[in-house]
Each structure stands twice: as structure tokens, then as C-alpha cells.
């Protein structure tokens, strides 16, 4: 075993103290949760967006079953508005693991007329993800769906269980959640219902970065500082991509930026940063005074209850 100090550097620990570092304790908890699901459900699936949280979750899942392979497939809900670096990373990672990838496509749902694309310069496909997600769950008869949500990132998520029940319509009812005690998870459900499972509920953004550094987890390059053509909207730097319409009063310029979260390119903002490696990112994360969603997610700025409303509909 090794221990971790504040900056995330591993150092040998005395074997006689029988203490775990906070990252070791969080890892042990997450592995326990992932194994419970593999043992108790018939058709689990793990969501994987290519973002840092799902990268950590997938890494934990691989560790949970070593030396055997991952005993469930991986699912990406693809808005079609991706950063190419993230799709490259996704495909490379899936190939390395020899895992099966299920893609639930927002574009397919739009083409088939099952969802209607938003229009206007601020159109986003973020909210549209719920329909293909629920359709893929139904079609594949998935009974447990792992998500990489963390309780510290958003206040509706702070109140969600690790095992979170979804009814026949994939809906979350925040006022009617099952009590969750000790590490005894109740995954019982009827046919057609499913459970969302959040193994990294108790991790913070800083924990994620320290763990990424400790474990040497590869991430998409857009998390590290790079020069990019961006423009300012609502106090965020949005990337100039084919998926957004730059307004007449908005000016595209090249800046040194990185992303703190990875999502639909039309609603995920970059921050100005020169943090080009993990040590610099950890340092920046430790002193930042703005939450990652507040800094970079237009989808959470809709209203105080934006996330709660989307979750009730069946969102991640």
C-alpha cells in the first residue's frame, strides 16, 4: 500500500498503522459498490462519456474485476456535438479494454423524429440526451446503469442515493427515495424499472484529479491547457465549433484554455488556464473559488433547479 499526501504524491506507508488514506478509502468504497452491482444485477451497463469522472469510474471497474475482464458493456450517449479529442479517447480506451461499446445516438433520435432539435443560436442537445438514454436502457433491457455523478458537483445530486431507483419511465422521485444505510445497498426492482448507480458519489473534483495523478489515468487532451479558438458568452469561453452559431456581437479569438468538464460542445465552456500538467491542474483546483459546473456548464445556469428537473425526467 502507499499513502498520498496533499499534492497527490504517493509515498510508502508503514504497514502497521492499518490506516487508509482518503483516496484508498474512496477507492475501496467504489469497488465495493461496483462489485455489488455485478453480483446482484443481470444486465448492468456503465455510462462512459470520455470525461474525467467516467474515466475514473471505468478505471475503478477494471480494478474491481482484475484479472478478469469487465463483466458488463459500456454505453456512450452521443450528442453528435463532440470534441473529436474525446471520441478518439473513448474509442482508444474501449479498444484497450476489449469492452463492448453501446452508443445511444441523439442524432438517430432526431432523424427518426423521436426528439425535436432545439433551434436558435443557443440550441443545445444536452437535454435531448434523456430520450436516447432511456430508449437504449429499454432496448437492451439494462437493469443497472452506472453513472459518474458526484454529490459535490450539484445540489440535487447531493441528495441522491448511491443506488437510485428509476420507475418504468426512467424518472427519479427525490421525495420518495429509499433510505440507504451502512454499505447495504438495495437494488431490488420490478421488470422495466432500473437502478442508477453512482460509485463515486463521495468524491470531490480535487479527489478525482489526485486519483488521476496517483493512478496515471489517461484523459482526453482537452483537459490540459491548449490554444483554442473561443468566444465569450454568458461569462464562459465557448469553443468555436460547427455546433454553435457565433453571434454578430461575439468575437472569436485564440486563447490558452482548458476544460474542467466535458460534455456537449454547445454548452460546455472552457476556462482560461495555463495548467498543462496534472500537478498544475491539482494546484489550480485546490485554490479555485468557482465550482466546475458554475464555471463551465450553461445547462446548469437555466435555473436553480435545472439539474433536478432534468434528473426527474431521467437524465444522468
Amino acid at each position, binding site marked *: *500500500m502507499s499513502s*498520498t*499526501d*496533499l499534492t497527490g504524491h504517493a509515498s510508502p506507508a508503514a*504497514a502497521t*498503522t*492499518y*490506516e*487508509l*488514506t*482518503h483516496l484508498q*478509502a*474512496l*477507492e*475501496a*468504497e467504489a*469497488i*465495493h459498490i461496483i*462489485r*455489488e452491482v*455485478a*453480483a446482484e444485477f443481470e444486465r448492468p451497463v456503465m455510462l462512459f462519456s470520455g470525461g474525467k469522472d467516467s474515466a475514473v469510474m471505468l478505471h475503478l471497474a*477494471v*480494478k*474491481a*474485476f*482484475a*484479472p*478478469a475482464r469487465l463483466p458488463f458493456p459500456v454505453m456512450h450517449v452521443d450528442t453528435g456535438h463532440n470534441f473529436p479529442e474525446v471520441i478518439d479517447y473513448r474509442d482508444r480506451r474501449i479498444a484497450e479494454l476489449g469492452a463492448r461499446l453501446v452508443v445511444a445516438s441523439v442524432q438517430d433520435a432526431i432523424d427518426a423524429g423521436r426528439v425535436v432539435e432545439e433551434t436558435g443560436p443557443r440550441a443545445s442537445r444536452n437535454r435531448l440526451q434523456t430520450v436516447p438514454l432511456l430508449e437504449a436502457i429499454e432496448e437492451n433491457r439494462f437493469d443497472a446503469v452506472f453513472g459518474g455523478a458526484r*454529490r459535490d458537483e450539484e*445540489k*440535487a*445530486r*447531493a*441528495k441522491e442515493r448511491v443506488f437510485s431507483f428509476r420507475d418504468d419511465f426512467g424518472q427519479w422521485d*427525490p*421525495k420518495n427515495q*429509499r*433510505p*440507504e*444505510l*451502512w*454499505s*447495504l445497498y*438495495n437494488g*431490488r*426492482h420490478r421488470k422495466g424499472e432500473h437502478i442508477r448507480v453512482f460509485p463515486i458519489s*463521495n468524491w*470531490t473534483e480535487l*479527489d478525482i484529479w489526485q486519483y488521476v495523478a496517483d493512478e496515471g489515468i489517461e484523459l482526453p487532451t482537452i483537459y490540459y491547457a491548449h490554444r483554442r479558438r473561443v468566444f465569450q458568452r454568458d461569462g464562459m469561453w465557448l469553443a468555436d465549433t460547427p455546433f454553435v452559431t457565433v453571434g454578430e456581437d461575439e468575437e472569436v479569438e485564440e486563447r490558452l484554455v482548458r476544460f474542467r468538464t466535458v460534455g456537449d460542445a454547445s454548452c460546455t465552456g472552457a476556462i482560461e488556464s495555463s495548467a498543462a500538467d496534472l500537478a498544475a491542474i491539482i494546484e489550480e483546483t485546490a485554490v*479555485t*473559488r*468557482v*465550482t466546475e459546473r*458554475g*464555471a463551465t456548464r450553461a445547462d446548469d445556469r437555466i435555473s*436553480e*433547479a435545472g439539474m*433536478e*428537473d432534468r434528473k426527474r425526467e431521467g437524465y444522468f
Partner: protein
Amino acid sequence: MELLRFATAGSVDDGKSTLIGRLLYDSKAIFEDQLESVERTSRDRGDAHTDLALLTDGLRAEREQGITIDVAYRYFATPRRKFIIADTPGHIQYTRNMVTGASTADLALVLVDARKGVLEQSRRHAFLASLLGIPHLVVCVNKMDLVDWSQERYDEIKAEFRSFAMKLDVHDLTFVPVSALHGDNVVERSANMPWYEGPSLLHQLEEVHIASDRNLIDARFPVQYVIRPQDQTSHELHDYRGYAGQVAGGVFKPGDEVVVLPSGLTSTVASIDTADGRVDEAYAPMSVTIRLADDVDVSRGDMIARVRNRPHVGQDIEAMVCWLTADTSLRSGAKLAVKHTTRWGRTMVKDLQYRLDVNTLHRDEDATELSLNEIGRVQLRTTVPLFFDEYRRNRTTGSFILVDEGTNNTVGAGIILGPTAVA
């Protein structure tokens, strides 16, 4: 850096939200955008002060009604420790929420209003903390500014609380006089109370010794999942058979002589594997994979223990149960599903022996049912044997949940007192 999980208990007016807000704010765990949003909502509602409770009350109904519905988890860290706060609301479904939040806590923070002294609810908080086996209880005597920083008043409350706590199973009880509003003794020692010689609350949270709270004596390993790569291309992996799980107590080492329950077959630990390689020792709460030297039949729900230190094995159990639902009540004869460690079974309530008044600790032996938020002592008979310890000896092998087989809801939380004595 070590992890400390603590639960907070308090009611609407005792300043709990202010205290938590203060801890989070002073440890820089509240971000500017969160604070701005809370200030905006407070202003829009016409509050006189910024309501820090809005930081944790995230659901629409909570913000509209100004109440806390559910346990909220908050996170902060100092250079010494990382903290997880389970913040439990004071009024609605109090017991259910506090039991939930307290089940995994290393420490409970109980607030007492210095003007009001030890109220019924302070007693209830302390009782629940002791029932849930929380090893450390810190009593914050708050609003000291409103009693002129009086040492006499503080000592009075302390003595009253102590005399009540003597009836409880509390191992470590400490007191801190604070003013959450002004920050006295929260993060920094207060200049207003020079008579208080102890540490600030945050210092206490950073320093309390929790490593020895874990049971390092009784080796318990509930088997979660059997890992069999079934890889035909590699000779070593082809024969690999490992038992994955999270250590629930004691220390396991390669070479240990172990018994597998329920079969009773014995073997020795061949190796303890993790994805990072083999380890020399495994202890709670490590998630590892144990391989045995012999080809014995082991599956999920089994337990690996030391040959000369075994848990109780049985189907007749004495337990305290907290009832968690308003939909039904618990009565003698009720049949429910039970989950204990990694084992599911069914159980029948043989007898409800008494219902406990959590305010007075009075035992009502005439009670015929337990309703939502009520706690009572029951005798259970399970369809499969469970491998268990007394809760006060091991919180993992001593706890269980009860699940309604019709709705699949979690309806009861159980704390094992021991096997039913044979009459």
C-alpha cells in the same frame, strides 16, 4: 490524508446550518458562485440574513418550503483530513434521517442552544448516536454570545448532558463552547472565552483518533463476487479463482488458516490480490480478492473467517429495529426480505418485545407495532443462517436492512444485539 465521516444533529433554530456554513466557508469549501446563488435566493425570499441552509437544501420543494427533506452530504478538507458531513434535518422524519446519516459516521456533532440547555431533542440525538454505535460524540454548546460567554452556564449544560449520557453507550464525549454566528471556537480559539482550555471544533475534528475504532481483531470477509477470468489463452488465468469482497473486520494475511461459512470447510489464504498487485495484509475497509490454497466451494453470501474466531451462525436473532416507512408498520408475524452483509434471505418477526421511547428511553412492552420513526426490540427468525456479530463489536457484520417484498422499498434498519438465547 485520512477520511472522517461525521453526522450533524440539531433542530431548526439551534444554528446547525450556520455552524456547517462556517466550517465550509472557513475551509474554503464554499465557492463564490454557490454563495452568490444563496445570497440571491435569500434576498428574493426576503430573508434578513443569508440563509446558509440553502447551500445544502438543493431540491425545489426544500427551497420553496424552507425545509430540509433529506440527508445532504457535504465535503470539505483541511491539510490534515478530508471530511464528509451527513447533514440530517431536525424536524421531518427526524429519526429515519438521522439513523441513515449516522450509520456510517465516525463522529456525531450534537448542538445545544446555550440559552435553552439540554432539551428532549438533545437527548434523542445523543441516544441515536449511541444506538448507531458512533464512537465519538462532540457536543457544541452554541450561542455562547447570547449567555455572555458564561463559563457557569457552559459547565451547567455540560454536567446535565454528562449525567444523561452515562445511561448511554458513549465512549468518547467532548464539549466545545461555540458561537457559530461569530465563529468563536469554530475554526480558531475564542478570545471571548479564555476560561475554555480545549481545542476549537475544527481542531477537534482534525485530531480525534479514529484509527482504533475499527475492529482489527475479528477477521471477517463476506464474499461479494467470485472472480474467474476463464481465459483459455493463459494457463495461470485459466485456473484463477478469487473471492472478491470488502474486509469487514480483523486482519487477513497469506498463510492464515481460515474457515468458509456456511460449509465449515477450512483452508489457508494463498494470496491476497488487488489490481495493484498482492498485499501482505488486508484490513477493513479494504476491497481485495482472496485466493485459497484448496479448491473449496465458495460463493457470494458466504463468509471467510479465522478458524478459531468465528462469527455467530444462526437463524434466530435479537435486534433493535428502526422502522423507516409510513406505508406499513412492523408487527409480530410480519415477513420481510433481509439483507445482511452480502447475503439476502427472508425473515419473520417472531416477537416485538418492546417499543422504545427515544426521548425518555422508556420501554413500552405493551406495544403491538412499530410505525415510521419508531424503534423497538424484536426477535427475528431468518430462512437462511446469517454469519453475524453483535453490532457494538462490528458495525458491518452487526447490521442489516429489511425490505418490503411487495414494494421493494427499504423499510427497516436493524442493529444486532446477539443470537436469541435458547430457552
